[in-house]
């Protein structure tokens, strides 16, 4: 076994989409992850889509228990995990049943035939064995007794049968690695690292992997072998990263760039918990993480830390944001910086906790009582979560305001290669605490006015400890400048106006929208968030097929970029694909009175480029 299989006879393809599917206990997420890592290190561009049930371990063998991981790897740039897998690895009947309909016509199915016994077939709802009843005609089926082969190869190693059985995913990984000529060393290294101390497990996994790798040749599966050349990426250092990690690192970067220690108040919730986990590791960066008793305490503790001069963050998902509304309203009126991260998931209510959706935009805008405007920033790709986090923190700290940062389950868990930025190149975030009086009273004595404002209507940030700047903040309406309690009607009107304008002014400090795709087309697609990959893909394909379509992708949802209205006015048709029932489309229609039309999907899954291509074409066809 060479590190990189390079049989000269292997045909080269531009891209493949592989889907690993099996029982929750079968280790499919790990298998997909490892395959992805090896492909990334090999230099392919790629995008992934992990999909798993809400249960820790849903009932074995059932459809509900299927866990899957899809990855597209390519020698070209890719922006989605692929429309349809061309290869499906199905570790049991339930996985086959659940995912066969996704497979491209004529695609390849690799199955662990050992799992296709009566009980499992029944659990999956098969009356007959699909491997035998002809229902897979039209696909290339490769049945392999993976369990048995793995157990055999482990027999000499003196590992427990249970451990041996559990290693069968490495058999599958070895086989697929061989088929796609992946380097093997990274995977073997990883096994050695990960299971350090558990020598038996290491031995079993490596044996299984090698057996799978060898099986390809032995079983003469050579005709299935293809290679995918490294992608022609910009020069630089790359790592493979998912959205939650990128977002966490972006927050750490914002803390470093602003010179403020970070405080995270959070309560675990899928799919946001991993940000808490990641940040809890980085105490040497001065990051304080606090696992609060609930989401309300989480955001309130963050506001407390913000009052104390920290870069304050709270991370959660939709249900948590719904609980934080009142406290966020306080942050709005206190005019304190705060980053609220919402990793959106399938809703409403508990909904589909492990699935993706982007249906919290209007809540981000309006989910508070009274007039409490707040900037909203959305990330659009796993790696871009890094920049989005920095941007959200920059706005919060520069404009003394809470900011909602939207990501979603797909970005959170999906990964892609990321060209690491030069730390020097990161934006500086300038924070200056007030240290002295900023006004004089009628008697000419120097005083501190906590709600005096600069040219951007931003108030000074005086933190406890600062000499002579003692002041009180609170949720009652406050008198202009002094911040004392005021019930004066004119003052309330003024303060409401100031709070509104302060957010609008931020438009001057965000980049104007850029139009990509075909700017001269008559149709523009306006997207936000994680639809970026699918929209880009669809527009690329439409372009290749001769249909020019313009693309505008918003990272700033409130305020909108200053030129957005002007840009939209240039197009006859405005299409707005969203993973919700039409939220941005409402904002655009209300703001710009354009007859924008929604393309909507609420299935707990991202758009595929193919779907969007079809939908956009249909809309254009409507004339």
């Amino acid at each position, binding site marked *: 076994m060479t590190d990189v299989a390079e049989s000269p006879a292997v045909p080269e393809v531009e891209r493949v989409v592989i889907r690993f599917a099996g029982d929750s206990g079968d280790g499919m997420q790990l298998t997909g992850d490892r395959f992805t890592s090896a492909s990334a290190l090999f230099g392919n561009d790629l995008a992934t889509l992990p999909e798993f049930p809400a249960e820790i371990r849903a009932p074995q063998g059932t459809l509900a228990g299927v866990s899957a991981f899809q990855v597209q790897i390519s020698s070209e740039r890719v922006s989605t995990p692929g429309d349809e897998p061309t290869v499906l690895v199905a570790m049991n009947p339930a996985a086959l049943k659940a995912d066969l309909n996704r497979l491209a016509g004529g695609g390849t199915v690799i199955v662990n035939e050992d799992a296709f016994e009566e009980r499992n077939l029944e659990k999956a709802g098969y009356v007959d064995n699909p491997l035998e009843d002809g229902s897979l005609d039209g696909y290339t089926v490769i049945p392999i007794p993976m369990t048995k082969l793995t157990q055999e190869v482990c027999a000499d190693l003196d590992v427990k049968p249970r451990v041996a059985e559990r290693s069968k995913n490495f058999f599958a990984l070895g086989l697929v690695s061989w088929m796609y000529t992946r380097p093997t060393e990274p995977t073997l290294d990883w096994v050695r690292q990960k299971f350090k101390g558990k020598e038996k497990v290491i031995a079993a996994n490596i044996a299984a992997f090698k057996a799978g790798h060898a099986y390809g040749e032995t079983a003469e599966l050579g005709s299935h072998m293809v290679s995918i050349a*490294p992608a022609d990426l910009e020069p*630089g250092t790359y790592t493979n990263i998912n959205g939650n*990690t990128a977002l966490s690192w972006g927050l750490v970067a914002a803390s470093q760039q602003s010179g403020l220690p970070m405080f995270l*108040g959070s309560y675990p919730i899928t799919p946001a918990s991993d940000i808490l986990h990641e940040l809890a590791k980085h105490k040497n960066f001065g990051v304080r993480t606090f696992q609060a008793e609930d989401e309300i*305490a989480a955001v*309130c503790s963050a506001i407390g830390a913000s*009052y104390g001069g920290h870069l304050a963050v709270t991370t959660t998902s939709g249900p948590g944001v719904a609980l934080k509304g009142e406290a966020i309203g*306080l942050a709005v009126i206190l005019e304190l910086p705060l980053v609220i991260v919402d990793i959106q998931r399938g809703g409403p209510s508990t909904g589909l906790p492990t699935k993706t959706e982007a249906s919290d935009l209007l809540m981000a805008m309006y989910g508070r009582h009274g007039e409490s405007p707040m900037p909203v920033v959305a990330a659009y790709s796993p790696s871009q979560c890094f920049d989005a986090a920095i941007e959200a923190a920059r706005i919060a700290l520069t404009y003394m305001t809470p900011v909602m940062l939207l990501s979603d389950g797909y970005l959170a868990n999906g990964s892609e290669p990321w060209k690491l930025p030069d730390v020097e190149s990161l934006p500086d975030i300038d924070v200056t605490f007030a240290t002295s009086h900023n006004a004089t009273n009628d008697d000419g004595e120097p005083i501190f006015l906590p709600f005096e404002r600069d040219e951007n209507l931003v108030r000074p940030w005086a933190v*406890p400890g600062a000499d002579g700047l003692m002041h009180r*903040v609170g949720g009652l309406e406050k008198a202009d400048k002094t911040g004392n309690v005021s019930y004066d009607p004119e003052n309330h009107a003024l303060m409401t106006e100031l709070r509104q304008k302060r957010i609008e002014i931020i438009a001057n400090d965000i980049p104007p929208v850029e139009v990509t795709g075909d700017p001269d087309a008559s149709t523009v697609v306006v997207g936000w968030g994680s639809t970026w990959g699918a929209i880009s893909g669809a527009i690329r394909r439409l372009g290749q097929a001769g249909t020019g379509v313009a693309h505008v992708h918003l990272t700033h949802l409130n305020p909108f970029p200053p030129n957005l209205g002007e840009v939209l006015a240039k197009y006859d048709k405005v299409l707005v694909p969203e993973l919700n029932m039409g939220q941005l489309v409402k904002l655009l229609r209300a703001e710009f009175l354009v007859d924008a039309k929604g393309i909507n999907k609420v299935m707990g899954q991202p758009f595929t480029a193919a779907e969007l291509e079809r939908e956009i074409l249909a809309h254009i066809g409507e004339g």
Partner: protein
Amino acid sequence: MANAPVTTKKDWATDQEVRWCPGCGDYSILTAVQLMMPELDVRREDTVFISGIGCAARFPYYMNTYGMHSIHGRSPAFSTGLAMARPDLDVWVIGGDGDMLSIGGNHLIHALRRNVNVNILLFNNMIYGLTKGQYSPTSEVGKVTKSSPYGSIDQPFNAVSLALGAEASFVARTHDMDRKHMQETFKRAHAHKGASLVEVYQNCNVFNDGQFDTITKRANRPANLIDLIHGEPIRFGVDNERGVIIDSSGNAVIVDVADVGEDALVVHDEYREDPAVSFALSRIAANPYSPTPMGVFRSVDRIEYAAGATSQLAAAQEAKGPGDLHALLRSNPTWEVD
């Protein structure tokens, strides 16, 4: 915070008009605090008062320190964040019985178990004042209020029992009619490293006037206030004739000293690791109409939350060196494209 400049009461008061009803017990608590602060050797700049919503919660506006009048029930959460972020500060938390025990009950008990270094003053007037007189979680059963015209049917919380059940390391009770006792109790709370809960019986003369008269009126105190004094047998009464024992079944009960002899009395020990006896003492009075213990029920040392968090930060820095962003970004496998 040591060697703070010398200050007087005036330095600790803001220019804001105090907006409580004339005669409200909150005034005397405010005075007690403003008079006490100069004695604490702390700077106003390093002091923060955080409150929720309610009459009591107006308190921060009157203290010339840093302060936050937050939202209803959440002051323990705000102060937890602040105290963790800024262990250098002196954080006081003020709120009413509704604020802290009704909507805010959970944050309170979690702050107590975590032992965050905040001084929590719970102004218990056994009523909702600011919303004009509904019963609160400390109101007695049968209380007729706007929201309970037929009498409330809710068993009240005993704030001291609840705090002890929630692992509080410092729990005390005082009342608005005794400035000295308040000040001493608040000073003890301030000196305690960790979360301190002080229940302050406070008269709301508009919606619940005289609720505590039986025990706090000067004339009634000898008979009905049981002073808890560390190291002393627990005795009270007009002629110091009554005392508290733990009876054979394990309950704290009031007895005539003459019947049992002084030696049988509980010698108060604030520092007992086990909160059981403090808890037993908290059960002596089911309501403020019969002899009621006042003072420090419990004061034990336990690692303070922010200190714990800070030491983990320090240890991590020690072990890994200060954060290096460049290295962090490269902490997973990387590859080069050229």
